[in-house]
């Protein structure tokens, strides 16, 4: 086949030429419109340029249920901030970034964000924060998390990281002492998931608290995450005949343990760690949770007007999944960061500077009487929220505030 053949084959017909002219005409019209409208839009958007805030959240992987619920609450908080004028006249826009429930991925995201943004929210998991926070400190990048249950993580990463969560060190001891007094238990068995840092820490704090009251810990039984069967552990508990049991585990697993204990006829008071108490715990344990106590900063059944209003609004967004504690602390983390940015007069627009970031962490550290969703509180010198929690009782699957 000759080259001439190709030329003839591809020569545009009259119809094609007309079509091309039409396309060129539309393109020219579009370009002119864009030139005319573009600058006007830019001018209009100028004063209200949004402040991008990255949110490091476990959207996939085993921590995904926490992450998605937290983001729902954060988006509600961002809407609240923007409805009240945003930050120094700029709306805030959350940019959700998936840590994949992986500490290494969380650290990578912090490194990327530190080059682009003023500050970040998250991560929402303690394990992710352990890897991400040291990077933030190294790069002098402010971060506000909502789920750090171990105060040591905060202490180790001063002065660049903050948390709206009351750590277990503050709540666990007093709540466990209350439980011992109420139940009168003199011997206990502890069941702990050592694979989960938050559970293990809370469990050890609870054990220390009972030991202080002269309670004897008969045995510490360790379990794994997503363990298929607890029959061996339950038989062991039964053979020891304790007067009380304390459980430190993730919510569904703690629910499964409580259910297995009840099914096997072990009917003694149970205290579960703060991180174990979420709607997932109640979903799994159901009515098997006959005589369970716990402590928390929030429960969706609280009758305070602010709690009821938040829960109702959250349920509309979450398709019926009730908010857990981390939803409230996530909500507060957005409000706290926006509040600190206002007080520090920083937005990070046009590229954040070291001075802006330092001003921001000073504002965060100086937080006093901050109006959170449910309570007013301070940010302590170690970067985490101060305040008190609630002592709850769960009887036949029904939660009530202990008097």
């Amino acid at each position: 086949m000759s080259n001439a053949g190709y030329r003839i084959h591809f020569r545009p017909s009259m119809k094609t030429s007309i079509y091309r002219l039409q396309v060129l005409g539309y393109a020219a019209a579009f370009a002119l419109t864009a030139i005319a409208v573009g600058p006007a839009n830019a001018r209009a958007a100028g004063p209200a340029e949004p402040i991008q805030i990255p949110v490091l959240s476990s959207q996939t992987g085993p921590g995904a249920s926490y992450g998605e619920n937290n983001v729902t609450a954060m988006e509600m908080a961002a809407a609240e901030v923007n409805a009240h004028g945003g930050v120094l006249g700029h709306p805030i826009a959350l940019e959700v970034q998936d840590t994949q429930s992986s500490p290494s991925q969380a650290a990578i995201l912090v490194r990327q964000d530190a080059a682009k943004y003023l500050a970040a929210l998250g991560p929402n998991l303690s394990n992710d924060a352990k890897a991400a926070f040291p990077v933030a400190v190294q790069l002098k990048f402010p971060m506000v998390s909502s789920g750090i249950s171990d105060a040591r993580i905060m202490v180790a990463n001063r002065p660049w990281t903050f948390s709206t969560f009351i750590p277990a060190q503050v709540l666990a001891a007093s709540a466990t002492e209350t439980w011992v007094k109420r139940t009168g238990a003199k011997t206990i068995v502890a069941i702990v998931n050592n694979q989960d840092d938050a559970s293990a820490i809370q469990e050890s704090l609870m054990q220390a608290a009972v030991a202080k009251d002269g309670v004897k810990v008969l045995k510490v039984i360790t379990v794994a995450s997503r363990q298929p069967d607890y029959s061996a552990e339950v038989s062991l508990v039964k053979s020891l005949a304790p007067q009380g049991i304390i459980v430190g585990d993730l919510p569904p697993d703690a629910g499964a343990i409580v259910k297995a204990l009840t099914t096997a006829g072990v009917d003694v008071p149970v205290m579960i760690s703060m991180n174990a108490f979420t709607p997932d715990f109640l979903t799994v344990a159901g009515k098997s949770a006959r005589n369970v106590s716990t402590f928390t900063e929030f429960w969706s059944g609280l009758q305070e007007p602010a709690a009821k209003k938040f829960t109702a609004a959250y349920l509309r967004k979450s398709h019926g999944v009730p908010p857990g504690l981390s939803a409230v602390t996530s909500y507060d983390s957005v409000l706290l960061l926006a509040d600190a940015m206002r007080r520090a007069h920083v937005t990070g627009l046009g590229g954040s500077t070291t001075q802006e970031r330092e001003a921001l962490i000073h504002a965060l550290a100086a937080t006093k009487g901050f109006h959170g969703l449910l309570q007013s509180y301070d940010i302590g010198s170690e970067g985490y929220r101060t305040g008190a929690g609630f002592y709850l009782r769960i009887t036949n699957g029904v939660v009530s505030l202990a008097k």
Partner: protein
Amino acid sequence: MILLAAVIVGTIVLGSIYALMAIGLNLIYAVAEVVQLAQGDMLVVGAYVGYLITRFVPNLFLAEIGAIVGCGLLGVVVQLLLFRPLAGRGHLPPLVAGLMLGTAIEEGLRATFFQGNPVRYPSGATLSTSLFNVAGVPISEAQVVIVAIVAVLAIGLNLLLNRTKLGLAMRAVAERPACARMLGVPVATVVTLGFGLGSALAGAAGVLIAVVFSYITPFIGIDLGFVALAICLFGGLGSLSGAVIGAFILAFTEQVTTIYIASSYKDAIAFTLIIVVMVFRPSGLMGRLVAERP
């Protein structure tokens, strides 16, 4: 006495479920020579199929049948679309494909079912009523039903493999695929059906796990798939009797360690035992010392 009884009861119940998981994986390996790394996720699919069924009819047996059929069909589709095109391209591509398939299933289920929040079967389907005591250990209706279902499935599988033409063809393909092809066995079809059967067993195990486990999430199969693979290697890849023996030894080791030593050593001791066996018998307890299948 109560502890010894707990060990025995726990070994029987957990060992039965482990056996079902491992038999499915071994069956797939035997006929397709593929280590299906998404087998744990197939199990989760079965658990969710059972969940959907029990939402409408809280009946464990219907959930079992639904999971067997659903996962069997899914296994056939997966073999035809994913593993058949990769046949003959070495061992690595199917392994990677299995891993990717597992992640896709986990994330797909998470996006579909309540953001991955745990769900549980309605109480009518979990049969938690305590029937009787064995030396102080309460035996629930669910435990009895689980062992019975596994026994029925194992006997059914045994009959299928040893008393039917399909079973004969599967054994022929597992032993000598080239010879089987020359003798007129439709090897590709048999491999697909074997894959479906192995996946169906995973689905059956998924419903039982959901009953024992108290709840399901898209991620419960990650560890269980690993356990099934370890049992297969321990008992002998491709050996169905090895899978059963391996499952009960692993369950027994876990129960004894939990009760008499400490739960935290459970995995360390169980998997060290597996390593020791593999060092001295690389083909596993019941595996044949054959390097490559002709």
